[in-house]
């Protein structure tokens, strides 16, 4: 396990978390083992259980920025969604200091409204006052690099622009818990550099950041600690260089 100095305040505690999805399977049967027929819903529809997380435990502290790595389907996104509460745990519990914000790839906050309106509403939703939003408005716009497009509705934005604006809004409050799930991958190089700097800033302001990424370079540049997940279990938790080296070795095999 990683170093756990007791004088640091924990921000997130993940305690032996299991997540099982029940999914209606259609098409070919992969195996007979994990399937049961639902008689109520008629023939043909089968329920399969996917065991996405199998007993993950760790504690994240203030001033931590944690990289989460693993192959596709290893349970990274499930773990992040569980920390935010968007996926319920089958057993085990998660405790957090505040409700975290989760930035994933995908839809704009309010796609019919302009970037400007999204900044205002996003800020208000997070509990900022109108004055606080006015003060940080210019920063958010220039951070997202959207000066020319800020009055356009967000449905006209490219996926990179959407991700940039969402990240800029959600990272305004620096002392909170922020989870970035691949959201920076669609950004261009300049934005990635800028957002990495912002993540370090959040970390230094007693915030906690989780960064899910397949870019080992971004993780090395921003994270103070790395968690490696494989098939729903925690394989390794420790110094970035160490964990990444072990992960890459396992990948190359």
């Amino acid at each position, binding site marked *: 396990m990683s170093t756990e100095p007791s004088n640091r*305040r*924990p*921000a*997130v*505690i993940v*305690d032996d978390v299991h997540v099982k*999805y*029940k999914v209606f399977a259609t098409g070919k049967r992969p195996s007979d083992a994990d399937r049961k027929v639902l008689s109520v819903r008629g023939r043909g529809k089968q329920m399969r259980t996917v065991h996405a997380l199998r007993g993950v435990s760790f504690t994240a502290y203030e001033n931590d920025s944690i990289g989460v790595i693993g192959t596709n389907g290893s349970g990274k996104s499930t773990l992040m*969604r*569980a*920390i*935010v*509460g*968007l*996926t*319920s*745990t089958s057993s085990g*519990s*998660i*405790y*957090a*200091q*505040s*409700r*975290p*914000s*989760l*930035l*994933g790839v*995908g*839809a*704009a*906050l*309010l*796609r*019919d*409204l*302009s970037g400007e*309106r999204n900044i*205002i*509403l*996003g800020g*208000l*939703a*997070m*509990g900022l*006052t*109108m004055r606080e939003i006015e003060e940080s408005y210019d920063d958010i716009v220039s951070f997202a690099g959207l000066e020319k497009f800020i009055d356009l*509705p967000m449905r006209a934005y490219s996926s990179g622009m959407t991700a940039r604006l*969402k990240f800029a*809004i*959600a990272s305004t409050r620096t002392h909170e818990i922020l989870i970035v799930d691949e959201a920076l991958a669609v950004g261009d190089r300049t934005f990635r550099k800028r957002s990495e700097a912002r993540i370090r800033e959040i970390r230094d302001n007693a915030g906690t950041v989780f960064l899910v990424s397949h870019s080992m370079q971004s993780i090395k540049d921003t994270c103070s600690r790395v968690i490696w997940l494989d098939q729903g279990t925690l394989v390794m938790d420790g110094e970035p260089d160490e964990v990444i080296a072990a992960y890459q070795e396992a990948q190359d095999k």
Partner: protein
Amino acid sequence: MTTAEDAAHAGLIKVGGRPPLREYVTEVWRRRVFIYSMARFKIESENQQNSLGMLWVVLKPLMNALVYGMIFGLLLGSKSRPEHFIEFLIIGVFVFEFFAQSWTSGGKSITNNAALVQSLAFPRMVLPLAGVTQRFLQFLPTVGIMLVFLVISGGFGAVDLQWLLIVPIFALFYVFNCGLALVTARLSVHWRDLNNFLPFLTRFVFYTTGIFFSVEKRFGPTPTDPDGHQLLLRLLDFQPVHEFLSLARFALLQGPDYSVDGRYWLYATLWSAGLFVFGLWFFWRAEERYGRVD
């Protein structure tokens, strides 16, 4: 020490839990600017793509009145009509429009704003409230048109102090609609199909409430049936939309057809307060559930 005690000691709260109701309501109140701003921005964006823009806020109710006026005023005659039928109809259609729109946008507010709910942390209750507030703001110019129309059709003699009663009536109606939206928003998260039923539900209420016919004339005593449908009338006494409509017509129109049972004030108030308080509690009970995909 167990992990749970450790966590409590460090001031952490269990994810997937919800804050106590009082604390939750305070958080929602702190976001009242959000509720108002979201309502306003949504109105703007709804009209942004139309070349007539914000004019639609006024045009839509006018067209509604025109269509319904033509159908029910000219094409379909009926014996169950009160005096001043056109005024009666316009008040009915406009007030009902506010009810139906609130129900629909408030009820769908969680399912339609999935991206926002899944990204940022905030009390979800602000969304249904913003939906109803948006419809309320759109209802206000409609009220203006309604009053102008009443002046045109009835002359300035129609204006009286009793018109001021619409302020408490519509305020109560707003509270009632908020309560209904909160309950519906939660139900449609558990059971997505409800969104498909909503248009039918609103239409059902439209045709059963006295929008284009007078409930009292239709079900009241007639020469052929001296008793009338007393049971139905008693039941309708407790139908909230009917109560609000009767109160609004009582405030705005004169004549024996528009007197209102004093108890309607009590019933409407009880409905609004009761449904709103129940809605707060009911919506809060599933706070951790909103935005989940499993």
